[in-house]
């Protein structure tokens, strides 16, 4: 017997994964949540038909949104994760002893429950006493924050789904205010390859570029993402991701990783020409 789950990368391209069985399927107030068991990727969580992470490749994403800013900012104490209902990003952050608080703002309670039930290893991040979960819309939470965080990680995935508001000018503006004067924001920048994703990719960079003095993009290869390619945004008020990057300091920590290295840190900011062109075009727009 064969059961295949297909993620529609575009109208004309799909990524299909053979699944053993479906473990969960329910519509929450915000989205449809499915969990599958697969041979190749282990368990996968799917939101509104898109793979959010799988056991096999989630480490790439989690390490890249945490270690990159942590190797740049010398003194991170307070972190905000917007989204992050699976706990994976929080888990990587808890490896840093100097961090004092990690606020996770995830509107969808069901997503958290499902993660705890089916991905207990990932959701362990929530058990650390520095982690505080708030079930609230990200934009609403941010409105009340001023000069509060050293690092904000936007762990929301879909610029067209219920997290649309987290890829907008108002979101970047609100993040800017919520950060300290030397704060950094890292966000998912999507995949620039397919035409239908390119417009969103462009708009995101334009908005971040207009809102922050430093705004760079870096990449990682993630098999379950459209075209296997995923981009992240690094927006900051002060620190540059390469000029202020301190490899020695970070290596001294001796953290165990599977994807991130300080060599890769530098490489991740070296982008394909077509992506560079897209970014510089957007930077020239007013």
């Amino acid at each position, binding site marked *: 017997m064969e059961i295949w789950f297909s993620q529609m990368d575009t109208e004309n391209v799909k990524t299909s994964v053979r699944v053993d069985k479906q473990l969960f399927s329910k519509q929450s107030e915000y989205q449809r949540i499915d969990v599958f068991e697969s041979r190749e990727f282990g368990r996968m969580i799917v939101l509104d038909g898109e793979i959010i992470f799988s056991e096999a490749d989630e480490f790439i994403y989690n390490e890249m949104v945490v270690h990159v800013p942590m190797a740049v900012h010398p003194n991170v104490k307070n972190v905000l994760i917007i989204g992050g209902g699976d706990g994976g990003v929080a888990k990587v952050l808890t490896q840093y002893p100097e961090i004092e608080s990690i606020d996770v703002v995830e509107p969808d309670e069901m997503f958290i429950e499902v993660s705890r039930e089916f991905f207990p290893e990932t959701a362990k991040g929530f058990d650390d006493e520095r982690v505080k979960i708030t079930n609230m*819309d990200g*934009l*609403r939470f*941010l*409105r009340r924050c001023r000069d509060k965080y050293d690092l904000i990680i936007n762990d929301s995935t879909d610029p067209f789904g*219920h997290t*649309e*508001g987290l890829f*907008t*000018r*108002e*979101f970047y*503006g*609100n993040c800017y*205010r919520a950060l300290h004067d030397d704060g950094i924001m890292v966000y998912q920048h999507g995949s620039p390859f397919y035409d239908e994703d390119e417009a969103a990719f462009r708009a995101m960079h334009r908005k971040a570029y207009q809102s922050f003095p430093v705004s760079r993009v870096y990449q990682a290869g993630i098999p379950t993402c459209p075209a296997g390619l995923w981009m992240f945004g690094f927006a900051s008020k002060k620190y540059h991701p390469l000029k202020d990057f301190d490899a020695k300091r970070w290596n001294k920590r001796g953290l165990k990783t599977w994807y991130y290295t300080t060599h890769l840190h530098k490489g991740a900011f070296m982008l394909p020409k077509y992506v560079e062109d897209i970014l510089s075009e957007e930077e020239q727009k007013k």
Partner: protein
Amino acid sequence: MDRISQHTAPVYEAMLELRKRRVVPFDVPGHKRGRGNPELVDFLGEKCVGVDVNSMKMLDNLSHPVSVIKEAEELTADAFGAQKAFFMVHGTTSAVQAMVLATVRAGEEILLPRNVHKSVINALVLCGGIPVYVPVRVNHQIGIATGMALSDVERAIREHPQAKAIFVNNPTYYGIASDLKGIVDIAHKAGMKVLVDEAHGTHLYFGDNLPISGMAAGADLAAVSMHKSGGSLTQSSIMLCGKGVDAEYVQQIINLTQTTSASYLLISSLDLSRRNLALHGRESFEKVSSMAEYARAEINEIGGFYAYGRELIDGDSVFDFDVTKLSVFTQGIGMTGIEVYDMLRDEYDIQIEFGDIGNILAYISIGDRIRDIERLVGALEDIADRAGKDKKELYCGEFIAPELVMSPREAFYAQGEKLPLEKTVGRVAGEMLMCYPPGIPILTPGERITQEILDYIEYAREKGCSLQGTQDLECREMRILTEI
């Protein structure tokens, strides 16, 4: 309202039946269920194009309804508490015009507030009725025209006992309602009809804690924009008749200008929207009210903006307030409404209903979700923050009521000449000029132009309002009556 019969939707059901029958069309429209225009099918979808059909026996005829349209109109009348309802396919503009044309003839007077929609003035050009303006009160804090005070209406009725009707906005674009019940009582006592513009008031028929609806207040005719808060397709609307109205005459008036090829997309959307409103309207508008109230509270917390609500109610010219309206006074952050409106669209991808000199209006409806509200509030906060603290002295742009020299029709058809706006002071306008939206005329045909009015127009232009109404698309020249 008979809830059981409200479950049916006669036009919609007849259209489903037609689709099943697979009738071969040798009638119009010529695209023949889309086959003749594949690009259109690709764009709008087969389902949509497939029901773009013409009137035929099984689908009835809007100009002469005897079967399914008649039933659908009867259900609508029942749902809205009216004696009779008409489906309209030329927008609420056509419903407003039909109300006026059905009530006022050449030379007869009609009482109305000056802040009416342009469609009312245009109807007077068509029928030759004479407008008698009831003074409009102004709220000086937010610079908007409010409603009519009952005492002003009483005086107008006393001074113009021959007037045929009084026209009432219920509510205004900004959500302000006059004492409609009080107006109906004194107007009827004086033998005048009451015409109600409910372009912004469909939900009043299905909500609690909202201003009273035209039919509930005993009005004679009401124009209701189903396509605004009611959820039907753009351009579809309804006209309601109260007790004692000669509906057959009203039908004749409608037929004077109505198309004989009414769109079934529009008609079926009215039928389905009426069903939805009748069955679920109350809970939907409760949700809309609470979303708007939430947004108001959050916006007022930002500081600088003033999202006004029921606190404006003074029992007089602001007799009631429609809480589903989210109107925000923006000058507290040092920006005009139109500037905020443009910024929301250009930089935040948020399209709101309109911005004028002092205010913006965000339209909240049954299609909204709280996360979209968060975006709007988040964007306003960001704008307030970027606007900085230096509060510029802004011209509040208060409502001006010009002097009416002759009737709109007389002025419209009188001999005139085109002059650059700046040379028109003291002269009489031969055409209309307004900002759109909201479409409330700054000048109507027959009104005297003053320097104050020209200053207002130039200020609105400078701030980015879209000026319309004159033959000159740029609104730099105006047709002025030749002085004799």
